[in-house]
Structures are given as structure tokens and as C-alpha cells.
């Protein structure tokens, strides 16, 4: 894992930073559910595009990878989205 992190450290640092900012904003805007849901949509979209971009830069972008990131971002977003109801 550490080797993988070091190999693409810039991409992972961007990912962690954005997720950290998202988490802080998500908790900060409680109890405003509308803003929280907007942030969830933003986070899901960001993760999907982050995955596509990273693999695209490595010339490893494949249909399976796109589906994988789409499903993971949808799952993560859905879990948080359902909590806000």
C-alpha cells in the first residue's frame, strides 16, 4: 500500500485533501440537509472523475475502470445520501 501511495503520491494527496475538505464542510453545514446533499453529489462526481483522470494519465483507462469508479462513487454517495433523510 505504501509503495502504491508513493508511486502516485500527488494523485492520492489531492484525493485525501478534497475528501478532507468535503468531510469538514459536510459536518459544518449540519443541520442544513440541502447543502449536505449538494456536497455529497459533488463528492461522488469528484471521485468518479478523479479515478478516470488518474487512469487516463497512466494510459490505463478502460471501460471496466470507468464502471468500477462509477459504481464505487454511486455506492459511497448513496450511503451518505440515504442518511440525510
Amino acid at each position: 500500500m505504501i509503495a502504491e501511495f508513493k508511486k502516485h503520491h500527488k494523485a492520492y494527496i489531492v484525493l485525501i485533501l478534497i475528501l478532507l475538505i468535503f468531510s469538514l464542510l459536510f459536518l459544518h453545514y449540519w443541520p442544513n440537509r440541502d447543502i449536505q446533499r449538494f456536497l455529497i453529489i459533488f463528492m461522488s462526481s469528484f471521485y468518479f472523475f478523479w479515478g478516470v483522470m488518474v487512469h487516463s494519465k497512466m494510459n490505463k483507462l478502460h471501460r471496466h475502470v470507468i464502471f468500477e469508479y462509477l459504481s464505487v462513487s454511486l455506492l459511497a454517495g448513496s450511503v451518505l445520501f440515504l442518511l440525510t433523510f
Partner: protein
Amino acid sequence: MIFMSLIALGFFQIVGIVSSINLPQGSILGYASSITVAQVIEGTNRERATQGLAQLTYNGVLSEAALAKAQDMFNNQYWAHTSPTGKEPWDFIKSVNYNYKVAGENLARDFDSTGPMISAWMNSPTHRANIMNPRYRDIGLAVVDGKLNGTETTLVVQMFGTLVDGSVSNSNPSVEVPAVTVAETKPVVTNTPVPVNVVNKPQTKEELEIDSQEVIEVDANDLENSSPNDVLAIASVPQGSLSQGILMSPLHVLKAFFLSIIFLIVVVLIYDFLIIGHKKPSRLVGKNLAHIILFIFIAYLIVFFKGGAV
């Protein structure tokens, strides 16, 4: 794409099944909050004290109006300042003969303790405006447990007011605790209520100004001569109905369910990552480490997610 759709469909199906399980009341899943009227008043006055505002005085008549409002929400299964039949907050206040010149209402639901609920009100500009309004003198409260939309919850109705000069109102609360009858058959109105603030000028035909600039007319005859009653500021769950079972809110159940799913996924991803690290096969899929990082953040948010609505 079909595979993706199946995953999404399966996920929502599982959530639907879990949420639609109709557990016998009190046998497995029970829920009650620790919110008390005294705590809410103390919390409200503490917030006002930070701005040097006068302490609000508990008013039993206002509390009777708040209790009537809470019972009306359970009986008619709605969550709003205005009932499906068009009944406004000040209709409840007038019905107990509290002759106000200014009044307001805050609502809250699904909180299991007082602190987060007060914080939620203070984080909402409109609710905060009610709490910090220097024109209020009295406060009435009802904390009522019941079933709304098939879910055990606690509704808190906070009513503020100031009597018209010279009016008399009985503000001594009764110590009795009534049993609340709740209905669960009618559909729920799910619009988010915005706190209301009503100004009642002492004239024959009066305009009531609401915080959203809406203006309505109210006949002042309705506000004449109060005959205060003993009032009940708090209502508890009927004895025995929730006495058995685990004390868990629906939010806690949902959190536990989602955390279990995420834990399982993360374990599988870590296992897969380690296996791939050893065997190094050629594969097209993405990066497990990124998914693990994402799901750890999601788990963190689930754990610290605060429920409740105001």
C-alpha cells in the same frame, strides 16, 4: 451497464426491505430521547445569556399550546408549522387564550438529546432569530414521544410569546404527565418547517406579520380574556409501550447497517490488495487504495453524522 444497474437496484432493494420491516412495537426496536423541558429552557436561556438578553420565563399556557401542536402533528401525521388543515401555530396559542402581542415557534424532531438540538437551532439563522429575539418574555415547551411516519421519534415544540400589556396568564405548570395518543395511518407532510414569528398589534382587526413577510388578518375577538388552565409541558411514551427491547433510534440502526456494509467492502478491498500485491497478475480494474481511502472517509462521516431536523 446492466451490471451497474443491478448493483444499484440490489442496494436500494436491501435498504427498502430493511426500512420496511414492520417490527412489533416495543418488542425489538424501541426509542425514546433524553430531552426534557427543563433542559431545553436552560439551554435556550443560556444562549440568550451569551447576548445579554433577558431570561425567558416558563409559561404553562404556552406549553399547553405547544403540547396541542405536538399532538396535532402526531394525530394528523405531519411535520410543519402549518397543519394539512391549514391550522397555524398561533391558532394553537389563541386556543389556550394566551393573549400575545408577539409570538413565535421552533420545531425539532429526531434528536436524542438536548445539546445537539439547541446547537441545530442555533446553526439555523431563522430558528436562532426566534431564540435570540429580545421581544419574547415567555417560553412554552412540549417534548412528546410518538410515532411519525411509522418511526419512533421525539417532537419538540418550542413556543415563544409576550403577553399584551395588562393580560394575565396562568404560567404555573401542572406536574402531571399525560399519555399521548398518536395516530400512524395518515400520510406525512414532509416539508421542512421554517420557524414562525408573529407580531400581534393590539387593535380590533390586526395584521400579523410573519418572518417571511406574509401578512394575514386575525380577528382580535379571538384573543380576548384568557381562562388559563393547568398545563402539561411534557408528555411521555405511554407506559409499557416502549419498555421492552433495545433503545436505538432509527438513525442508529441505519448507521450500523451502512457501517457494516462499508466494513465488509473495506475488508474485501484490503484482502484483494494484499493478494494482488503477492501474485501481481495483469488486471484492468482500478486502485483499491483509493477506494479504501474513500470508504474510510465515508465511515468517518457516518459515525459523526448527526441526526435531527429543525
